[in-house]
């Protein structure tokens, strides 16, 4: 392929390339399908390029910048033809939109393409709210939820109000803010297995705040954090359901929550 061809093809439908993220692909494909539904309902043509795996963050945060560059180039290539690239994770989308241009800035062949991709890449909630300006979807969910602000989405991409605005339209859902919603849950990618004791202490603090909020459901926008929080909740035998915001918004929350099984 030569260069980027941002095209609106023959219709006015925006063509969206879905960046599934590796965790959603492996652990919770339902979030991916929720994205597809939300985007299609909002009038997008959604495609899923096959040559995507992961944004490269594990390598980037471990110091292997060369491998990250190679993965970045592969991702840029895979998503070259779309009007937008959208993914259900603030963390992965921040890697694509903030880190790719930075690590490729001295690469004459790729720096421009990295910047172009960055300019078209959005986290799902931000895309629906800020770009498509959709109104909150009409769906329902029975529960009292609290929302965990994942760090990269919040601090790198400024995602704070968007999911809350979208959730405000969900019938039957009350959203209660917990204390320290913006404090890290202790996931941190490889951190959670390199420093398990500290990570568990941090996620336990988070769970203390979830408990204190009185919520029966925890919502968030990054599966890494949600796996971490759900993993600890279940270990502690707590009955809180953990879901990605997209699942609730798409009306696809009728299945077991993260870490819950058929018999829960």
């Amino acid at each position, binding site marked *: 392929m030569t260069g980027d061809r941002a095209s609106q093809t023959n219709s006015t439908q925006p063509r969206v390339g879905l960046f*599934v993220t590796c965790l959603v692909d492996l652990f919770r494909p339902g979030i991916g399908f929720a994205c597809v539904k939300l985007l299609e309902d909002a009038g997008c043509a959604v495609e899923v390029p096959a040559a995507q795996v992961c944004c490269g963050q594990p390598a980037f*945060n471990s110091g292997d910048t060369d491998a990250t560059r190679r993965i970045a180039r592969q991702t840029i290539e895979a998503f070259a033809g779309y009007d937008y690239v959208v993914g259900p994770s603030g963390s992965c989308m921040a890697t694509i939109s903030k880190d790719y241009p930075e690590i490729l800035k001295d690469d004459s062949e790729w720096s421009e393409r990295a910047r172009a991709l960055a300019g078209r890449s959005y986290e799902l909630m931000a895309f629906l709210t800020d770009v498509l300006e959709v109104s909150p979807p009409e769906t329902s969910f029975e529960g009292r939820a609290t929302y965990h602000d994942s760090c990269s989405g919040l601090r790198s991409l400024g995602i704070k109000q968007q999911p809350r605005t979208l959730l405000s339209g969900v019938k039957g859902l009350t959203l209660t803010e917990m204390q320290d919603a913006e404090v890290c849950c202790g996931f941190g990618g490889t951190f959670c297995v390199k420093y398990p004791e500290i990570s568990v202490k941090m996620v336990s603090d988070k769970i203390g705040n979830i408990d204190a909020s009185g919520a029966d459901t925890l919502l968030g926008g990054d599966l890494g954090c949600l796996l971490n929080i759900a993993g600890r909740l279940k270990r502690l035998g707590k009955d809180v359901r953990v879901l990605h915001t997209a699942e609730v918004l798409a009306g696809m929350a009728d299945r077991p929550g993260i870490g819950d099984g058929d018999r829960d």
Partner: protein
Amino acid sequence: MAIAGESFKSRASSALSDASLQTSIAGLKSGFVAARARAVAALPEFEAMRDAGAAIKDHTLAHLDVYLERYEREVVRQGGKVHWARDAEEARRIIREICAAAGARTVVKGKSMVSEEIDLNAALEADGLEVVESDAGEYIVQLAGEAPSHIVMPTIHKTTDDVADLFEDRHRAYGFMDRAKSAAELIGQVRTILREKYFAADVGITGANFLVAETGSNIIVTNEGNGDLTSTLARVHIVTAGIEKVVPTLNDASVLLRLLARSALGMEVTSYMTLSTGPRRADDLDGPEEYHVVLIDNGRTEMLGGAFQSMLRCIRCGACMNHCPVYLSVGGHSYGWVYPGPMGAVLTPMIAGHEKAKELPHACTLNGRCQQVCPVKIPLPDLLRRLRHQQWEQGFIDATTRWGISAWAWLAQRPKLYRAATGLAIPVLAWLGRSSGRFRSLPLASGWTAGRDMPAPQGETFHAQWARRARQK
């Protein structure tokens, strides 16, 4: 202070199970975070001030030689003397020589992180000098034979009870026979003891918050007023400062002072602000006979002009650690050296070398809260990631991590192979975990499963399902 030997991980582990430490840190978490937030909210131009603060520091660092020379000229013009120390050893030697020349027996010290950095107390004590810390917090850690665990609040790891125990044991010598019953009583004891020491001191050593190039002044801020006494009562005043402490003008210093008080303690101003400019003049009521400044490099010039220069903006406010969920879990001593928390995780490897602080850049989730509150906008997470990159390049990353990341990255660049492998493995895992939805343990995942269940995959991978859907269309 020497760098602690055992690993961050094992120190952190003990800290996590230290109930009294956890109680003390909890206070920091609730109290100071809220106080800072209030102070910032009350000042609409705070964001603009952060930019101004960072710009002042960047400008100074870009012309550091010019401002340091200007500062030296002004100090000399005021009758003081400036000494340049390349490293900790040289700094200690200079200070010991000044003390020896003054025939000193007792030294009173104000709070100074750089003096901890160069391990000054031990060197002076080895020369037979009595060294008394005049900041209440520093006094307490000195008495306990400990190191500070926070750059602003050295005793944040101690409860009032811990201090009462310590004083009960050690203050008998000064005639305090009963255990103090309140924090006020504890402080009263310190005051009484220190008053004597101030008058007996031959040399007063202080740190510096800012060195002002245009006037040759040193500014220190305290909440106890000990800075005033330390710098005026002794015959000789020695200022110890890292070379990055210089700012061009008093105006510049005032911008940074406003940022500092709010970021450190949530105060608009600190209780005391002490400016010292040269020795006592003929018509001064008090002041030292000699005024020395020891400017310490100790690795700082190596950070100039490179990827880590922004770290030299640091004004040592401590906000990054107050907001760091890792620091707030494991406390300052876990970091093993003078500077804890996010700023320490950057500075320690820079000053002491990667081999002595390998773990620190990794002991972070890169959540970015530190950068969000840093008054001079230091991109701490980026700097930590850069240190990780340096370690990767220089071979400091352990073999398991290196191998794991490389193998995974190799696979991530082969989407078809990756798809085939995960397409087989994931349904098996999903099937195994289908009824409970999670695993209590998994081979090779003990880091995760020691304290958490591992949620089971929901079913087939997304890509497998999507491909089938596409075929059926």
